[in-house]
């Protein structure tokens, strides 16, 4: 801070000879320019090249599908209750399985979703997690409502996110 304010206060009369003739300063600036020309690029050739986010990334929420082919969700409705944008609709129904209850209907309106991750945080079953999927484009409102068919994702694809949650949640 003091350095910057000092340099700001520098008057023309305070400059050294080398600074006054400008040439070394131009060379310094050009050196930086040329250095960046040969540095590796940040820009990605999206969509040919895809960005793979880290586990902390909050993409679209998905439902965990167990290896047995059953959904983990018990349709308690807490995600639907906590959702600040009211994006989630759950309809529970009875199942013969031991956990008694499953979501007959589970719909997330991706036009309402704000990717806050509260559904994931509140879920008592670790059944809804944020995926790495960020590619969401629709041509009409109806397509933006994702049902169980689009939401259910095998647990094997979500392991790093679940691990991240166990560590930091």
């Amino acid at each position, binding site marked *: 801070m003091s350095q910057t304010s000092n340099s700001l206060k520098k008057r023309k009369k305070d400059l050294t000879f080398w600074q006054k003739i400008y040439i070394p300063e131009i060379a310094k600036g050009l050196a930086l320019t040329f250095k960046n020309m040969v540095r590796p690029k940040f820009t990605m050739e999206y969509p040919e090249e895809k960005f793979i986010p880290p586990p902390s990334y909050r993409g679209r929420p998905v439902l965990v599908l167990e290896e047995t082919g059953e959904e983990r969700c*018990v*349709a*308690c*409705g*807490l995600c*639907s*209750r906590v959702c600040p944008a*009211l994006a989630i*609709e759950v309809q*529970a*129904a*009875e199942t013969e399985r031991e*956990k*008694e*209850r499953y979501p007959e209907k589970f*719909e997330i*309106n991706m036009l*309402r979703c704000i990717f806050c991750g509260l559904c994931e945080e509140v879920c*008592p*079953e670790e059944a809804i997690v944020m995926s790495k999927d960020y590619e969401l484009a629709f041509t009409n*409102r109806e397509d933006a*409502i994702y049902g169980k068919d689009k939401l259910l994702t095998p647990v094997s694809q979500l392991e790093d996110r679940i691990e991240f949650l166990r560590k930091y949640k």
Partner: protein
Amino acid sequence: MPKIIIDGKEIEFRQGQTIIEAAKEHGIEIPHFCWHPKLSVSGNCRMCLVEVEKMPKLVIACATVASDGMVVHTESPKAIAARNAVMEFLLINHPLDCPICDEAGECKLQDYAYQHSLGESRFVEEKVHKDKRVKIGPRVMFDAERCISCSRCIRFCDEIAKDPELTFVKRGDRVTITTFPGEELDNPYSMNVVDICPVGALTNVDFRFKARVWDMSHTNSICFGCARGCNIEIWVRNNEILRLTPRHNEEVNSYWMCDHGRLNTFKFVNSETRVDSPHIRKDGKLVRVGWDEAFAETASRLKSINKEQIAVIGSPYATCEDNYITSKFARSVLGTNNIDFIRHTDYSFADDILRREDLTPNSLGAELVGVRPQKNGLNIEGIIKSIKDGKIKALYLIEDDLLSIDHELENYLAKLEVFIVNATNFNQSTNFADIVFPAATYAEKNGTFVNFQGRVQRIRPAVATIEVDRALEGMALSRLDKFGTKFDRWAQGKHFDARATWKILSSLSNVLGSKMKYQMAEDVFNEMASSIPEFKGLDYDVIGELGAQLKLEKVNVV
């Protein structure tokens, strides 16, 4: 009056009252599970432990009779420590089932765990496992693990339903509730145990998993099932009734209602058979038409018929307002004295607890507001006979099914020149109707019912019809109703194009040339209050939530 001091507040009590009763009367809530104001004292949950000065140990407020000068502390360190300990004990074997438990959101144990427990369990051992999902009766599901053994359900069956079916078996942490050998929890009042169960051990089979309590709106109303007129709450989500629960009214139903009322009186509201928009018979088939077309058609067809050849049948299922307008419409617009309603009685339905033999909610009200034969007019038997004789050419039937009482009429209804029906649902009679108007059900309108005691009670709209906006109408709103848009599937519940009968008939009178100017049901009621002596001095505010007793010369029990 003797006085007792609870938490520094001096309150009066009646001799014989217990501490918890005296506190409740003065708005002090002492936490409790097993105590219920209408059941005997059992004293086994220990949640209501309070400190009483000069007593060596803590006492349970539900079983300790208050005495003059007693000083009670419900928030002293000792009382709080005892409550925490009781909660910890109760939670030891209570499963962490809340996500799949229907009681979540209205669970006493859940609420008290937030209010009165330390929030952490020191219990590391395996919880006791018991039977889950036991169908203890045809309408009630039992989960033994969730039960906290408060015995409310057992005492309810013994004392209120007068049909002992449940009992405790085993001891200690293995204690569980079961039915007596060869018995089922199937008494006509069995579902009240679901309401009084402080946890989710007993759940409603019909409502099971249908909705979360916080997603529904609830509206105070009156049961439609019989002349008792039990006070109820209607629970609605996405414009669909999902369950009914009793509401406390000491004069009528106390805390209870029967299973018939709870299960069989709301499903027709959202059923497939609902009449949606007016229908006119064209080439033998009922065709949907607009309201104006239906009114014009009705008016032109009624005009051509002689006054003496018209009969009007009111309805004990409709409100006082509907019946008042029906009677007014019959007398001053149609000019006929042939007006009566059909009585639906079943003596086998009645019992000495709540159920009445009159299966309709408003037969007394219909009669009081003028749905009865006027000067030499025909009564219901006379109307039916005259239809058979061909003397009646036009019949207007309000919210009822004429064929359900006399099947022979089938051949004669078809021969009527005009047969108009205001119906909520298509029924046997609408099969022969020339014009059908869609009537709003009891869950879609404001109005009043008069029960068999002569008590006038209000019903309120819980389900919106097509012309109603929940918020503008002042109806109960759930969170989903508040924020839903037409693009949300969870806000697109079916709205029927139906109107209250008083509204249909007053529009029809306007088309027929006699102006009736009522904006809302309350206007009709206010006119009733000024013209019918029994209703004198009443308005919707006076009736309030719990109803008002009419001054009747003789209570006309059907």
